[in-house]
């Protein structure tokens, strides 16, 4: 198999596991409740994202430092309590700016302390003992999570409530209220995940086709090399 371009693309993408290839929400299915039920408006999505960042980043750092030393059964409670403790300042900060949003989020802000993205990253043995790698991996995962939250929140708020960041948008005349409820989020996420998977497959197909064309050109060149053209096309003897 001749996969020059595909391999080059794959090496480039492999270094960013969270954003492009293994998106934690769409591919691994982590932290789904927040993307489904809590991202009905852009501001709510921002609050949940900041809460997630504040809760996850330090906890994973702590996990990578103390992971191998703590016994198995005590690890999860420690991470959960640490994440919840970290959420306290985050909540104070966010109630200052968005008191109404945080109140309407209700259960979804405190539950950030036990979300599956956090547990998944803390239990990764390969990150134990390498705080820098853990930081990088968590950063990418959170970026992937934030990207999906942003897209879903924009779609749902724009078509669901006809507003963007609270301000009504002029060119939206009708509103689909179903998008604001959890089942609307589930359906949007399902189509987003399927779409991303289909686009990924199309991209890989295009790369493969270009590889095949490249191979055919190289074979044709190897078969009869292009004549090094002298003034009147006579071969220049080496």
């Amino acid at each position: 198999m001749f996969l020059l371009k595909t391999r080059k693309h794959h090496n480039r993408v492999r270094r960013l596991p969270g954003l492009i290839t293994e998106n934690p929400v769409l591919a691994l299915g982590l932290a789904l409740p927040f993307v489904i039920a809590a991202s009905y408006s852009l501001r709510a999505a921002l609050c949940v994202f900041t809460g997630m960042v504040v809760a996850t980043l330090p906890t994973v750092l702590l996990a990578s430092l103390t992971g191998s030393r703590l016994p198995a059964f005590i690890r999860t409670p420690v991470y959960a309590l640490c994440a919840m403790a970290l959420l306290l300042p985050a909540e104070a900060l966010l109630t200052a700016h968005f008191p109404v949003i945080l109140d309407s989020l209700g259960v979804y802000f405190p539950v950030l302390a036990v979300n599956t993205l956090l547990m998944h990253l803390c239990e990764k043995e390969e990150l134990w003992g390498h705080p820098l790698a853990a930081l990088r991996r968590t950063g990418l995962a959170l970026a992937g999570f934030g990207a999906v939250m942003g897209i879903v929140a924009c779609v749902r708020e724009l078509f669901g409530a006809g507003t963007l960041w609270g301000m009504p948008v002029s060119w939206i005349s009708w509103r689909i209220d179903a998008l604001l409820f959890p089942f609307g989020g589930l359906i949007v996420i399902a189509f987003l995940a399927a779409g991303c998977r289909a686009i990924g497959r199309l991209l890989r197909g295009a790369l493969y086709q270009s590889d095949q064309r490249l191979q055919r050109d190289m074979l044709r060149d190897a078969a009869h090399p292009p004549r090094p053209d002298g003034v009147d096309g006579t071969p220049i003897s080496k």
Partner: protein
Amino acid sequence: MEAIFQFLFYALTAALLENIFFTRALGIRHAMFGSPREILSHGVILTGITFASSFLCYGVRHLLAEQSLTPVLAALCYLACVTIVYLAFLPVCRRPDLRRMLPVSAFNCAVLGALILSSPGQDSLAAAAGFGLGSGVGYTLALFLIKTGRQRLELITLPRAFKGMPILLLYTGIVSLAIYGLIGHQLPT
């Protein structure tokens, strides 16, 4: 007698009406894989922990009723209760797979979500316990329903982009659309 009625009423609403899986989309991670036996053990552990810690949380709520607790602080206390119940459960289950599954089943969105949701409305212990038990049982039934859906989806030739997680999310979305018809309005999250 009145407590029993309240217990049953809250258990039923938590299990069928305000099912935390379909109406609040909490704990979807475990709906995607797992054989019926794993689902059963996950559900039983989850229900046990939620039920037990709902007693503790009720006690905590009464002790700290005076101070004005911010939601996250209250959640911290509930998490402490869950940890206590989790540590109490540890010596009970011996089997290695149960021991490995215990932390995952104890600390997930469904448990903490159910406890936080049960706090505002109820004033009596029976109501809180009923809500805890009902949400655990409702969550397990929801997982089994998704399991039968998954078995049915294996028989159909799905489009390639929808195989696996996307079609499961769509299936859950349609069932929660149906249950939304029963509630009719957005539940207080």
